[in-house]
């Protein structure tokens, strides 16, 4: 029973990680860029949301409604001001640029919000739970999982069915050929990053509701998102989702074995996947 509970908690935790991982999978799939400041952007959005909630007494839903468009705008600006200048076959410039941005953001947040941990007041939602079978499940983690599933489904559908999705897939397959058919890669990239950071707007609200955030927390979120993407297999949206579940379950079971072992268990499962199935669970094997 205890292990079944760990499994359920792991899946719910995976819902949180999926919200980080989707944006990373999208950006890497399209631009071959890894944004090192990915986690810091989540924390920045969370802290902005918490400040808005305390200043104006907003509940979680209004914060979400304000934060997601703000995140979309941030992503668009990030692409226009920074990433469009460094996108290319050489991974070094984009890594270094976003690495510098990450250091700057972390310390800027440290100055504005101090090193304290904060959380978003949920007006009771964070303490409600419902009984499923014989385990109690928190209402909030269930909402997080549902939103993560919805986002994954929506992103997958957008990529498969819409004009924007076709442009994205074309640009990720071959930028020059896509440009020849009338797609403006830079506009597509800007929309991809805007979408990726927009998803982080959801993640920011739920992260701040579920637990606490502090300015130094970003790198850990980046690493979880990265591990989820690699475990699931690069380039597939549902792969990132399942990878997040695997990571969440590994950590939850690790925590049950020993509280000091939880995060490490996730890393070890990641390394095992890398050693035995480097293309990820859903990735296609390289020929």
């Amino acid at each position: 029973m205890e292990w079944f509970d760990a499994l359920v908690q792991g899946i719910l935790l995976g819902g949180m990680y999926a919200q980080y991982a989707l944006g990373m999978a999208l950006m890497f799939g399209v631009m071959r860029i890894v944004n090192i400041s990915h986690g810091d952007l989540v924390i920045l959005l969370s802290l902005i949301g918490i400040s808005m909630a305390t200043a104006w007494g907003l509940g979680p839903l209004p914060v979400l409604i304000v934060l997601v468009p703000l995140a979309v705008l941030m992503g668009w600006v990030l692409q226009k001001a920074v990433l469009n200048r460094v996108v290319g076959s050489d991974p070094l410039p984009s890594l270094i640029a976003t690495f510098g941005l990450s250091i700057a953001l972390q310390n800027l947040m440290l100055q504005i919000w101090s090193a304290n941990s904060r959380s978003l007041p949920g007006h009771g939602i964070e303490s409600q739970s419902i009984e499923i079978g014989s385990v109690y499940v928190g209402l909030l983690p269930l909402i997080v999982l549902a939103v993560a599933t919805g986002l994954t489904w929506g992103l997958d559908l957008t990529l498969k069915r819409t004009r924007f999705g076709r442009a994205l897939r074309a640009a990720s397959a071959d930028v020059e050929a896509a440009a020849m058919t009338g797609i403006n890669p830079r506009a597509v990239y800007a929309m991809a990053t805007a979408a990726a950071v927009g998803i982080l707007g959801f993640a920011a609200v739920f992260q701040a509701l579920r637990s606490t955030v502090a300015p130094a927390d970003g790198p850990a979120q980046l690493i979880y998102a990265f591990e989820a993407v690699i475990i699931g297999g690069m380039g597939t949206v549902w792969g990132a989702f399942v990878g997040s579940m695997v990571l969440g379950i590994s950590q939850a079971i690790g925590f049950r074995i020993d509280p000091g072992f939880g995060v490490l268990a996730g890393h070890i499962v990641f390394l095992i996947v890398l050693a035995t199935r480097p293309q990820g669970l859903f990735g296609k094997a390289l020929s």
Partner: protein
Amino acid sequence: MSAIPYLETEAPEVLVQRQTRSGRVAMTLAVLAMIAVAAMPWWASTGTIRSILVLCCYIAVAQMWNLLAGYAGLVSVGQHAFMGAAGYALFVLAQTYGINPFAAVFLSLLVPAALAVPIYLLLHRLDGPYFSIGTWVVAEVFRLTASNLPLVNSGAGMSLRVMKDYSAFERNVAMSLLCAGMLLVTLGGSYWLLRSRFGLALIAMRDNPVAAASQGVNVAKLRFLVYVASAVGCGLAGAIYFMAQLRITPGSAFDPMWANVAIFIVMVGGIGSIEGVLIGSLIFFIADRWFGEYGATYFVVLGLMTLLVALYARTGIWGLISKRWDAPWFPIRRKLVDPDR
């Protein structure tokens, strides 16, 4: 079909010029600086020796990162894993097993070397930017493992109490010699490597790995060797740094700050050159002394400077200098000179 006859010509007599005047001046200064570092106990206070030791560690770690990112195209943000591993190995060997700490510095280098091999075999499967975050995960795994490992006193960390068996002067002599040796191995070793046949291969690989492979450079093997060498170099810096600190904890041993330092130094100074590492190290060292008290603001500026260099001046300060004046300090080019002219 007859073969096209070639004209019998004599190969023109040329000299291969490999050293320049600026190079000779810089080499003399470098040798003098190395001697000055080795002789520190006779002219510097203990405080100065500690400062210069930190500067030497910056130079060593930055040059190791430069070798990886600037030549092998492997952008690691987790080299502190090897610093911490060697630091811990030194503490365990000297404190737990009672081996002479100065001998243990060298023995401890076996640990990063042995760890780098399986880690590279795992991580090289990751593509470009994902390799970088993979190295970060490895450093996190090391930190969490050290926090849970009773052999290294778990999260509480270890102290190097055996050092009190040596007088302050003896310790200063050892530290100074170790620093000079570290500079000789990391900077001198890199310079020697870049001037050798391997250097040609490395530079070819830096410019275009695919073209280098087509010219017979074994890119995969060279990358592997550079990764292991860089791990050992970082390990040496870590062992010396933590020997001077006398204390190690999982948080300090596997501190991502070192990745920030290495990236800032190399990117601002100028990637792919030894001169850039020296310039960047001096800038960072001085900035750290002057502006370190501003804490977070100082790091915001460092981060933004790194960002701006990546966006607008990828060759760093040395790149801007060498575009204007052709006076390399550590020349690695081969220039053909006609002696008759």
